């Protein structure tokens, strides 16, 4: 008997999707779903663990913050929203399984998910097939939304980000000899490197070295030594925060003094923590800046800090927050949770006032918005420039 009760409690936990823990105490007591749902279910698949865990954890915090606000204001269509969270463990195959579970088992009306492009790419075909709108907070590879008309994003795309990086390097920093170090196992990194190169060469810049590494590598000195021999003015690292800090340190150990430039994959406190002094003075392009004077941004930061013990939100948190609010707004505008109607409502989004800038969804289901360039100063990320696409 006791065993049965135990099984029951596990089942209840599983059904309420507990991993996200923030709403855990509130939802864990809910009984298994009755026929008429008392809430609107939105699925979230993010990397709460694994190599890029801070991406997923930040996104989730942003989503939960927005969710609390939406439900405090009465929810949408007269019902509160419930977010069911699945952990992708930073693996593409897990992303696909998570999405299948959210669609088939939990019957969610919309999906929020994944920062990493390779994981959203793995999951998107399932959402498209089942006609469940999917909004990715941070996958910037252009392929993602090309997977189908149910796949949207609220962030900029890599061609634009790559162009901005190239323009910043060539026109603002006036550094015309670049070396690129790409993560070859990562769709995002390969794409960003390609777009950077195209624009940089167009602006008269020269790529003196192109080297690569693979996700989870720890030793980069071989590649860096080759790069050093070519004496570039700037080092372009379109990778993730997990490796950037190590690359920075090892380049300094080899006596290289070049500053580094990267994309939004750098946006985690780990970049400055692991990189330390070596990463000082480097730049990266991002979705928003915490020292942006815009009141929308500052209000979000204040609320976030209050909710999460004084933690400063990174871009993924801001994107998660915007995605949740936009999803709720779209459900409200659609007046229904029907897949096609919801899809149309998301498609019609115009000038949505997000923390990460005003969001308008274009015909390719991408968001057009300005890009900020941040500089790492004393371990903090400071707004250096805002560049319109």
């Amino acid at each position: 008997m006791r065993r049965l009760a135990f099984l029951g409690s596990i089942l209840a936990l599983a059904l309420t999707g507990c991993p996200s823990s923030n709403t855990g105490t509130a939802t864990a007591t809910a009984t298994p779903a009755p026929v008429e749902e008392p809430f609107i279910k939105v699925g979230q698949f993010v990397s709460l663990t694994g190599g890029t865990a801070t991406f997923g954890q930040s996104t989730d915090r942003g989503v939960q913050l927005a969710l609390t606000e939406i439900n405090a204001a009465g929810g949408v269509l007269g019902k509160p929203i419930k977010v069911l969270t699945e952990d992708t463990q930073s693996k593409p195959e897990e992303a696909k399984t998570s999405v299948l579970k959210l669609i088939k088992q939990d019957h969610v009306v919309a999906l929020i998910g994944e920062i990493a492009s390779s994981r959203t790419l793995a999951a998107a075909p399932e959402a498209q097939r089942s006609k469940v709108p999917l909004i990715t907070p941070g996958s910037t590879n252009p392929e993602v939304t090309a997977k189908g008309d149910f796949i949207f994003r609220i962030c900029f795309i890599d061609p634009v980000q790559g162009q901005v990086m190239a323009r910043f390097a060539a026109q603002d920093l006036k550094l015309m000899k670049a070396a690129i170090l790409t993560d070859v196992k990562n769709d995002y990194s390969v794409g960003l490197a390609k777009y950077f190169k195209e624009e940089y060469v167009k602006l008269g810049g020269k790529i003196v070295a192109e080297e690569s590494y693979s996700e989870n590598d720890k030793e980069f000195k071989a590649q860096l030594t080759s790069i050093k021999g070519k004496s570039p003015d700037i080092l372009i690292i379109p990778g993730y925060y997990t490796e950037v800090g190590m690359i920075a340190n090892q380049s300094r150990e080899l006596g290289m003094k070049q500053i580094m430039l990267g994309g939004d994959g750098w946006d985690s406190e780990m970049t400055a923590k692991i990189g330390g002094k070596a990463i000082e003075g480097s730049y990266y392009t991002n979705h928003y800046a915490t020292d942006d004077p815009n009141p929308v941004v500052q209000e979000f930061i204040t609320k976030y800090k209050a909710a999460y013990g004084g933690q400063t939100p990174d871009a993924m948190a801001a994107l998660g927050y915007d995605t949740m609010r936009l999803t709720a707004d779209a459900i409200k505008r659609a007046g229904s949770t029907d897949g096609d109607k919801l899809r149309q409502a998301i498609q019609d989004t115009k000038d949505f006032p997000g923390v990460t800038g005003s969001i308008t969804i274009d015909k390719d289901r991408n968001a057009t918005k300005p890009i900020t360039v941040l500089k790492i100063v004393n371990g903090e990320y400071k707004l250096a420039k805002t560049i319109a696409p």
Partner: protein
Amino acid sequence: MATFVQQLINGVAWGSVYALIALGYTMVYGVLRMINFAHGDVVMVGAMFGLWLAGLCGAVAGPEFTGSFTAFLIVLPVSMAFCALVGIAIEQLAYRPLRRSPRIAVLITAIGVSFLLEYGGQAVLGATPRAFPRLVGGTTWTFFEQTTVLEDGSMHFSSLVISSIDLIIVSVSLALMLALQFIVFGTKIGKAMRAVAFSHDAARLMGINVDRIITFTFGLGSALAAAAGVLLAIKVQSAEPLMGLMPGLKAFVAAVLGGIGNIPGAVVGGLVLGVAETMVAGYLSSTYKDAIAFVVLILILLFKPSGLFGTPQVEKV
């Protein structure tokens, strides 16, 4: 030329880490004829414990102390001692009960222990990499500095740089290898280890407590793994639960390359592999780096199954 020498230095520093790990594989194989696949994960345990200890040092003696060489002198031996105990515990709990079982059972248990440490580590410590303090400072020494102006007017710098981190990795590895060589060939317990490696039964007849020697070997191997873990974590300035997986596998390749069971062989194997990987990544492409390591393994097994320094052995029937 400077680039080539630099690559060589990079390779030797990286290979030293492999060599330290490979020594543990080789010793355990020597006395037990088993591959301890959990060895790479003991490396991780060493690094994680070192991280905790460095944090503790910082909390007790102030954050300045964390970055000092004194902290390194505390963290390294204490982590080694801790991992020696972990290694002994693994042997007592997981491998000793299987002493009389077929070898395949022990091998599978070793893989099980490896997974337990990896994913148990993820569950307890979280999967996010943690920043590891720079215990030995970040000094670099530059040699042969040269600035040439190219035809197009751009400047070209070249120099040879040795960092304190790499220097310490190589010297600590070297010191530990010499110490190990001394223990095995210059002490009574080393003699007993060699006897056990030759034959368990014969050693027992000579009055050697075989179980105690095996325990000692595990402790020694795990201590070396911990040293490798701390050095590796200092080198890459981060630690995470899966950090021992790839280095562990590569070190296994290094041990086989040098002739498994052979101590100088493990060192040479580690260095060869480290230099080979660095050269491949530096002059070809990093994509082939891991592939090369395993191609080396396959070639060695094809042409010299006993490894570079190993002596061919006739399987006893």
